[in-house]
């Protein structure tokens, strides 16, 4: 009878009267950890005093597979990493290999790539907003976001036949020509979209409870953000004005005008505002791009068998989650010698332990949501 009836957490250092420090296991199967992330929270009552992230449940060894596939064969694997933003993964990989080859996609291909990547960014942010609001308790935004996201997925399906893991791009350019009413579809989506974003903002931005649950939660100062190499909306919300699309333009981003939203004090609310503004900017890019998609070939002179000269390249793009980098070493054969993928979700997650200290359990959920992590990319 002795102690198998301990009603409190497992192996917690509980003293006689009540518990001093409880270890609460969140995940790997938990409604709000955005995938198979397991967090061991050390709690003092409700307040979090420490945490340890256990990852690797979704590790598929993508980098090992890369060394046994040819450059073209590896492209579909890249979509499976950040399965919420597959198109931008593909863009990153294809451009990295093109840099390795010293080749370049024709202008028409680059413009279409930019449009699809920006649409994917909007879709990824919509999915983030829906799940993030759902974690904090607002049930309605999820369905509005999914309704808009559905429109984008329809465009992807029309373009390349797949909704989620699209494998839309090829090394050197595009496989498929833009279907004929491509511009009309994109315009039909983008035109009313900013009123839709206003709709979400009317639900959340000035909502007292939403502000109460997000302002001042999970603060990451600019210095810490740089030290923890956060990237994407996480670092911009901390006040660092840096976006790879502006700093080192790739694809056709240098042709279009758009601003980079920057937050002030790096809390959950600022990250929310930054991402909402980013959606609006992406819409502007798409509208500018579909005005004139230049004519011309969609596939560069790259040839069937790709044998990049030996050497290495590191190419990074601004994925919705942050800087998605590809470090590819080639040894002159048709198979990459080493492919290293810099996962923005994993590196943003490093700052998680610092951000949740001193908060309550309910905030942990909000902070996981605001980091916008996808476990496929964290575990690779």
């Amino acid at each position: 009878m002795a102690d198998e009836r301990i009603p409190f957490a497992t192996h917690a250092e509980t003293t006689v009267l009540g518990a001093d420090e409880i270890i609460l296991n969140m995940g790997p199967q938990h409604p709000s950890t955005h995938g198979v992330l397991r967090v061991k929270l050390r709690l003092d009552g409700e307040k979090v005093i420490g945490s340890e992230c256990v990852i690797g449940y979704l590790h598929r060894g993508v980098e090992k597979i890369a060394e046994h596939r040819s450059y073209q064969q590896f492209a579909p694997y890249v979509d499976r990493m950040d399965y919420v933003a597959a198109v931008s993964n593909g863009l990153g990989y294809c451009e990295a290999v093109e840099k390795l080859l010293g080749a370049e996609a024709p202008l028409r291909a680059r413009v279409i790539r930019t449009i699809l990547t920006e649409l994917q960014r909007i879709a990824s942010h919509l999915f983030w907003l829906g799940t993030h609001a759902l974690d904090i308790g607002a049930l309605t935004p999820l369905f509005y976001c999914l309704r808009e996201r559905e429109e984008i997925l329809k465009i992807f399906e029309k373009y390349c036949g797949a909704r989620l893991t699209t494998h839309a791009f090829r090394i050197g350019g595009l496989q498929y020509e833009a279907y004929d009413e491509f511009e009309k579809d994109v315009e039909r989506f983008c035109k009313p979209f900013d009123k839709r974003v206003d709709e979400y903002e009317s639900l959340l931005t000035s909502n007292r409870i939403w502000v109460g649950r997000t302002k001042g939660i999970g603060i990451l100062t600019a210095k810490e953000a740089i030290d923890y190499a956060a990237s994407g909306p996480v670092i911009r919300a901390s006040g660092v004005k840096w976006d790879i699309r502006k700093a080192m333009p790739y694809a056709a981003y240098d042709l279009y005008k758009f601003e980079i939203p920057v937050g002030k004090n790096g809390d959950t609310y600022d990250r929310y505002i930054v991402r909402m503004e980013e959606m609006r900017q992406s819409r502007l890019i798409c509208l500018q791009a579909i005005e004139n998609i230049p004519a011309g070939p969609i596939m560069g002179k790259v040839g069937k068998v790709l044998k990049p000269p030996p050497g290495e390249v590191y190419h990074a793009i601004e994925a919705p989650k942050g800087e998605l980098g590809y470090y590819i070493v080639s040894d002159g054969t048709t198979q990459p010698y080493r492919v290293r993928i810099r996962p923005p979700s994993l590196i943003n997650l490093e700052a998680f332990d610092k951000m949740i200290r001193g908060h309550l359990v309910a905030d942990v959920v909000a902070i996981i949501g605001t980091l916008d992590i996808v476990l496929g990319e964290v575990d690779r």
Partner: protein
Amino acid sequence: MVDQIVFYFFATLAVISAVLVVTRRNVVQSAIFLITALLATAGIFLQLHAEFLFIVQVILYAGGIMVLFVFVIMLINMDISMHQVQFNRQWWLGLLLALVLGAQLTIAVAVGRAGLPLGEPAPALALEPSTQLVGRVLFNEYMLPFEIASILLLVAMIGAVVMAKKKV
């Protein structure tokens, strides 16, 4: 006739659950039996049409104090307190004392029976609705004791807050 049945039902319920409160090993079950005992006495008040007393008993005891009891029980790490030394081996001494006390009570009532102004028990329905009655009496004749009691409670509350404050 129905009144008799109802009364005896509540009375036996109260007695049984009172005994069970003491004999149960599991502290939560004894708490539940304590609640049933209190509710049974409340039932008897209701049966006597003293509605105000009934609802005060329910709110105060069952709704207020017992919630506190159950709250504290949940916080205590139950199974460790299980091992504390149980001194219920002297239950026979307890029983003896109880019997002695019972005897004294019955004797006192029997002797004093003549002296007590126990008039004919008023029929139940004759009583005026008790809430207004209690209210009027409480705030007219017994104004002062009411104020003293409220100040006492206030002091107790502030004391509790101060004690808890240190820990937070």
